[in-house]
């Protein structure tokens, strides 16, 4: 017998599409409709079978694993808690509470994707909107340093390219679309205009655009590989549109200039509001990385890179970011929630992680779990656990429990650890 569940949310990416239909047969997902290929895979392939926690690779009882985790954290002087973006708000709250209790450093995957975006927002502000405003109003859309065709597969169809909205009744025909990137991508193929920027030249191009908006003339030729005439054309369209939106991604945050690139873009968008309405939306990657920002911020005042070592929250991007804390060899224990730094961090940081006792909470297997002392195979939010995720535009979406497995949630495990630490 199978059951159909509608309005299911998928946490693969920051779109958190919540219109998915799932067929359940017994304890497995038997069918998925409306999801993108990746989302379908996440849902389809999930194995909710209960697995016991492991201590140095050997299966142990939950009790023993909690005790081992607590004793690792109790013995540490400078523990690091990291990850969080693929977990739910409920677990993120517990993770901050644990960090506060331990005097730990807590950081999220934001620091290796949109951390610079946060810094730019703090420096110059940010004019933004929810995705429904994009669908209903935007007649000019710019994708800068991002490739939603690959990273956010339903973004075009649900929000930004083809959907028909109140003031965009003809869908794609009512929108002019630009892609700015260092190379042609799946997304640039679908744009009306592709501006190919030289690697590392985004800042220059953005500054040129701001200058043009202000009415300055630029010498002919090209800037950052883009002919000035094309930049002028873009600026004219930006000033004349009804509602413009820029989506930006790691092409800006992780290339030379980082937060300065983003700050330049955010300033441009702010200044365009003197002519037309304009917004910018960072293309957040992981399903609930925006939620991690939210929870850390409401609990500590800061979105990532927070140290409680002095008893109160201190903010230090570059200082308390996980990569830096590890690369400097400062962390003497780590608790990783639903992410895989051993696979993704720079070598020095990953090597240090291997040297220190590590605890992992993760529904799936990972390289980090492979090197960890204690591993808790937890439930997956939106599959066999309920919770909340925040979409890339910070709209909260409830995640339902579709499967009844016996797996504990991240929240439950963290709660037990909080009780067990001294």
């Amino acid at each position, binding site marked *: 017998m199978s059951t159909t569940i509608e309005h299911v949310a998928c946490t693969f990416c920051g779109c958190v599409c919540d219109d998915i239909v799932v067929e359940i047969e017994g304890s497995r997902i038997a069918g998925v409709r409306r999801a993108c290929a990746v989302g379908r895979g996440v849902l389809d392939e999930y194995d909710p079978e209960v697995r016991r926690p492991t201590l140095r690779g050997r299966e142990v009882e939950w009790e023993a694993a909690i005790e081992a985790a607590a004793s690792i954290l109790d013995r540490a002087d400078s523990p690091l808690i990291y990850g969080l973006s693929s977990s739910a708000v409920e677990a993120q709250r517990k993770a901050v509470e644990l960090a506060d209790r331990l005097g730990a450093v807590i950081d999220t995957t934001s620091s290796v994707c949109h951390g610079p975006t946060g810094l730019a927002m703090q420096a110059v502000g940010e004019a*933004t*909107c929810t995705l429904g405003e994009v669908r209903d109003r935007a007649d000019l859309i710019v994708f800068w340093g991002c490739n939603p065709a690959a990273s956010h597969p339903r973004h075009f169809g649900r929000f930004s390219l083809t959907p028909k909205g109140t003031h965009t009744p003809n869908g794609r025909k009512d929108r002019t679309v630009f892609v700015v990137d260092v190379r042609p991508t799946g997304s640039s193929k679908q744009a009306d205009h592709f501006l190919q920027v030289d690697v590392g030249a985004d800042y220059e191009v953005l500054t040129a655009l701001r200058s043009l908006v202000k009415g300055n003339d630029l010498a002919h030729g090209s800037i950052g590989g883009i002919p000035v005439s094309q930049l002028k054309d873009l600026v004219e369209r930006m000033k004349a549109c009804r509602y413009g939106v820029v989506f930006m991604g790691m092409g800006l945050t992780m290339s030379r200039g980082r937060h300065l690139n983003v700050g330049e873009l955010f300033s441009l968008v702010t200044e365009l509001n003197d002519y037309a309405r304009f917004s910018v939306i960072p293309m957040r990657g992981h399903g609930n990385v925006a939620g991690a920002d*939210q929870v850390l911020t409401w*609990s500590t*005042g800061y979105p990532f890179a927070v140290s*409680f070592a002095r008893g*109160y929250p201190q903010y230090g991007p570059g200082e308390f970011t996980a990569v830096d804390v590890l690369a400097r060899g400062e962390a003497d224990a780590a608790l990783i929630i639903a992410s895989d730094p051993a696979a993704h961090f720079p070598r020095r940081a990953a090597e240090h992680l291997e040297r220190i006792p590590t605890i992992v909470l993760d529904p799936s297997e990972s390289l980090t779990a492979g090197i960890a002392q204690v591993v808790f195979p937890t439930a997956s939010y939106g599959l066999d656990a309920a919770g909340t995720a925040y979409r890339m535009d910070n709209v909260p979406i*409830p995640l339902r429990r579709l499967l009844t497995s016996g797996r504990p949630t991240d929240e439950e495990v963290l709660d037990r650890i909080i009780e067990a630490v001294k």
Partner: protein
Amino acid sequence: MLGVLGGRVYDPRNGSDGETRDIWVKDGRVVSPEEADRQGAEIVDATGLVVMPGGVDIHSHIVGAKVNAARKFRPEDHRGAERARAGAFRSGSGHTVPSTHLTGYLYAEMGYTTVMEAATAPLVARHAHEEMADVPIIDKATFITMGNNHFLMKCIRDGRHEMARDYVAWLLRASKGYAIKIVNPGGVENWKWGSNVGELDDEVIGFGVTPRQILETLAQISGELGLPHPPHIHGINLGRSSSARTSIETMAALDGLRAHFCHIQFLSYGKGKGGVHTSEAVAIAEAVNAHPDLTVDVGQLVFGSATTMTSDGPLQHSLHRTTGSKWMNVDVEGETGGGIVPVFYKRTNPINAVMWRTGMELFLLIKDPWKVFLTTDHPNAGCFTSYPHVIKLLMDRDYRAEVFEGIHARAREGSVLHDLEREYSLYEIAVITRAGPARALGLKNKGHLGVGADADIAIYQEMDDKAEMFARPRYVFKGGTLVARDGTVVADPPGRTFYVAPSYDPGVEKDIRRHFEATYTVSFENYSMLSQPVTHEEVIACG
């Protein structure tokens, strides 16, 4: 059983003006002296101390999308305003926008036990509730912004009043809200077209309705649904020189309907020379005095750092243009918008000084303290932690005169402030910070210490310096539990979340669902919190 014995009790709702009375508490509620059981009771000797109900804040921005965006936006606000963890108490940070746990501690330490979050967009109400679960001690509720709501404006356009009413009821339940909030009706929608409204009869682009129609409809609906708190109105033209005129026009338009006008100080200006507005407090106070069904809170400006945050998007853009401060804007689909701009109010700045003076004049010119409440529109005009300072200004005319002499000369010109000798009494302070707001909110168990009231009690040592007195209560009880002593938290039980559940014709859900499918990017099922409890929730009955 708890007994607070021998205190000078200021309980305006029950007519006690400093009379010596004993307060007995059982199971978190005030009980009659006959029910008192001295054996084994916890006794607080309040002899000579001032006893008041816990403070009730009718308008403050403490949780949710906008507040949290402001926290993230302003790391510079938090440095030097940290609190270290202490035992089971959480650490936190933030001066104008404190983190959630710290917010609960700071309010409780000041003797406040009930706080209204003043604006939540329904689309992100879930966020506000998640934060409220992390604000300990104080009881909370949130107002739901509706003044630019598409479904509602369509109902008004099509003359479908009943559908509008059913929708409002549904929306309050779906977002677990407490009251209707209206912010710059129609102006926020027009801002999405780069425009605004300036008159009550201006048109909302794409809907053909007017601010006047939105205000009237929502005020009527609020009454029809019997909501405990009337519509909470931030009118058109906030901060502009036309604001006093349109505030008075709005009051006239809603004559005969209950309404609360929030942070009215920001809407009491007239046209002055060189871009410096004049205070029109005299005219506004006259209008407030004349309308029996109307209450206001002041939104008193406090010199120093503040963070302006409001759903009034166009206002924030112009504030950014004027001050050059960094700016955040968020347009929220189908519902509202908002902006954030940090500011620093200076007594030497003539505009800021006029704002300060306007607030003071309003406090002193509005005759009935049951109609005017103490707020700073936290953190827009100042922090809630400045309430003791504002109380001192109201109770101590010498101190007030001293501050007045120090503000920019332009702002002193023509002010009635030196002639206003009025000093608030402790009884009147208990009205404007407790009994009055509780009554306006329809919270029957708050703001007083009669039998059946929540045992939220703030006990102060009387001092000459009223700021010092009100900043550090000797004892604060929340629901009968001692939560703060000498201005420091000693316990942090969770607070409750209040909301209303007015009834509606379920047939409207079909229409709302259709509207959702056509216009929202979130599904109807995932938007509504109807069947999802929030922690420590309590429904307040509609009348």
